[in-house]
Structure formats: C-alpha cells, structure tokens
C-alpha cells in the first residue's frame, strides 16, 4: 500500500512515540519516591499508560517498515530522538537510585503542561488523514483525560495549600515554562493532511484552557509560550541535552545486554 506523505507521517510518529516514552520513563522514576503511597501507585499507572501509548506508536512505525518496535524504542541514539526537551529533563537532582532530591512541584507543573498539550495534539490527530493513527488517537484521548484530571487536581492543591507549596509550585512553573515552546515545535512536520494544525493554533488552544486555571488559583500568567525554544535545544530536530543520553543509557541497558531475549 502506498502511504501519501509517508516521510511526514513517520516524522510525526517519532515525535509522538518519543514524547510518550521519555515522559513515561521519567514518571516511572517516581516509583517509591512519590509523596505518598497513593501517588506511587498513580505514577506507576500513568507511566504504564504512557509506555503503552509509545509502544502503539512504535508499532505503527514498525508497520511502516521502520524496524522492530523494541529496537526503535531502545536502540536509537539521542540524535535521532524527536521528543521535546521539556520531557527529558530529570525529575530533580540525583538519580532514583542515588540521593534522589526530586522536585514534586516541577513534576506537577511539567506534567500538567504536557497533559494539556497532549490533549490538544490528540484532538488534532483525530483528524489525521492516516486512519490507523486517527483511530489510535481517538482511543488514547479517552485515557489521557485521567492524567490531565489528576495533574490539574495536584496543581490546584499545591497552589492553594501552604505558602511554601505555592512558592515551590511557582518555581516549578518557571522552570517548566522555559522549555514549553519546544513542545509545540513541529520539526519536520508541516501543517497539512497528516497534521492539520499549526503551532500557533495549538498554542492558542493550550493558552485558552490553561489561563482560566491560573486565574482560578491566582497565579500570574507567566508569558506567552514562545514558539521556538528560547534556550537550549529543539528536540524535534534531534537536539538534546546530556540528560537524554543518560536516560537512554539506563532505559536500554537490559535490552542491549541480552539482545534477542524474550521476557
């Protein structure tokens, strides 16, 4: 079967798969470290959802002849990854094994922004001209509502909790906001039948939903998310930080150690 716009479709699928895989890995690092046991369970479940979504996108790439889904997930070097830089940032200082000083405030802010962005993007994808992707997006959209709901609840809780929780949340918002523009960058995906929305349209939809939430809890709107990453790299074009390198080294370690093993 000939796929119209195949290069664009493939590029888009890498963005989707890599976003979900990388944030899912960061989520999984909270296991055992979250503020309380219910949150451990929540983040384990959310991580499982995101890795499952990544797997589904990688399988679409496999069907398009890009290679085995697991190889695409575990073996591609950082320069070929298309995730936004916001999602590869560590949860905080240290690692989950050694002296983790993770930042819940940053995690809540980043998670909320990503979930809201993802809901906007999934809505666009339901109109994708490649039917298998449109169908997957319609399904995933129904699941992601729970993530958005969860992180909205946390956002409000930190914002209206104590002076310290609010001050910390504001710090987390500021740090996440610096990378926000990179989420909306589309790299090698032009607006068209495969992805029928522009960066500006997505930023507008995102802003229209997030501004009322900031107003509700009385947090000042930082500024318009910049279209291009103002600092650092454009992950959609394969430019990444050293944090992605170390994430990939950890994530693919077992897979590379025992090639061909089945689990």
């Amino acid at each position, binding site marked *: 079967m000939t796929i119209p716009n195949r290069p664009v479709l493939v590029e888009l699928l890498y963005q989707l798969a890599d976003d979900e895989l990388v944030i899912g890995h960061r989520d999984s690092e909270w296991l055992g470290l979250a503020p309380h046991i219910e949150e451990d369970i929540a983040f384990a*479940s*959310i991580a499982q*959802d*995101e890795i499952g979504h990544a797997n*589904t996108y990688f399988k679409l790439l496999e069907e398009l002849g890009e290679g085995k889904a697991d190889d695409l997930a575990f073996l591609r070097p950082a320069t070929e990854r298309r995730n936004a830089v916001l999602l590869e940032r560590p949860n905080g200082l240290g690692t989950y094994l050694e002296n983790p000083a993770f930042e819940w405030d940053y995690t809540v802010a980043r998670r909320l922004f990503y979930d809201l962005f993802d809901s906007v993007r999934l809505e666009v994808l339901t109109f994708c001209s490649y039917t298998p992707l449109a169908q*997957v997006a319609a399904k995933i959209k*129904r699941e992601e509502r729970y993530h958005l709901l969860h992180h909205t609840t946390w956002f409000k809780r930190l914002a209206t909790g104590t002076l310290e929780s609010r001050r910390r949340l504001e710090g987390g918002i500021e740090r996440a906001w610096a990378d926000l523009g990179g989420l909306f960058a589309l790299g090698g995906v032009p607006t068209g039948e495969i992805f029928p929305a522009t960066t500006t349209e997505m930023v507008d939809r995102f802003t229209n939903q997030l501004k009322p939430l900031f107003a509700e809890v009385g947090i000042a709107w930082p500024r318009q998310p910049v279209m291009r990453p103002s600092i650092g790299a454009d992950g959609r074009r394969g430019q990444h930080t050293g944090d992605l390198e170390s994430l990939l080294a950890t994530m693919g370690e077992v897979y590379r150690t025992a090639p061909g093993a089945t689990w």
Partner: protein
Amino acid sequence: MVTEAAVWAALADVKDPEIPPVSVVDMGMVTAVTLSGEGAVRIEMTPTFVGCPALEIIRRDVIQRLTQVDGVFGVEVTFVFDPPWTSERITDQGRQRLASFGIAPPMREATGNLLALNIVPPCPYCGSQDTHMENLFGPTACRSIYYCDSCRQPFEGMKQV
C-alpha cells in the same frame, strides 16, 4: 463444519486474566468473528486500555481455546482500534460479574461524568452509596480505588473510558 455460534460460545470461556469471572465477551472486547470455509478463524478484538500488559496473554488464551473447537484449523487474533473500546461495551452480565468479584462496574456515560470526582459508584460488597474515591489510579490501568464508609471496605472500580 464450525459455526460462528460455536466460536462465540468458546470465546465466552476465555477469561480476563486479571478478573477470572469475566470473559472477553463480557468485556465487549470481541468486535468481529470471521470464518473461512477451511476452518480458519479470524478474531478482531479491541483493547480495553492501549497499554494493557494482558493483551498478549489474552491473544494466547483465545488461540488456545479456539484451537480446541471441532473443525477449527488455524486462529488469528488481531487487535483493532475501530471501534475503540469504551466502558459502555461491557455487557450487563459482565457488569454483574465485575461486582461479584468486588469491582464496581464503570459508571454509565448517561449517569456520570468521570471529570466529576464526587460521583462515586455504590459499594460492590454492601451496596451502600456512602463511598468515596481514594485514588483515581489503581492496581491496573483500568481501575480506580474507592472506600466504602458504610462497611469500611476498600474496593476497586472500573474506570469509565
């Protein structure tokens, strides 16, 4: 020669690996059964959750069960997203069996919006409405955790998706 009815009857024996009283038919996962003249069976199933790790187990169990049906030579199971699985697909029998296992069935779309967290299901143990949500996320992707303030029993509920 194998009939479609025989295939559906056999599918009713294939249980959800994590909820033994409930079959894949009860869950509304089977979307199409196609028979060829040669006894080849093709099953289309729609995953409850995209990241559900039980999918490959379900595929294996369906193949194992259908291979035992007289006249079946070859089983193929495909997961499709059209139609997407929603919790409305669970049959009435499936809802009763979920409750019998201590899992509150998902709220109907007509009666509750998942975004309204104060709408909670009745306790599957004592039937009380005096329950509250403990955790939107539970032991599997498809379940939340609730607590019954009447019989003081924690219980799980299937998410509305």
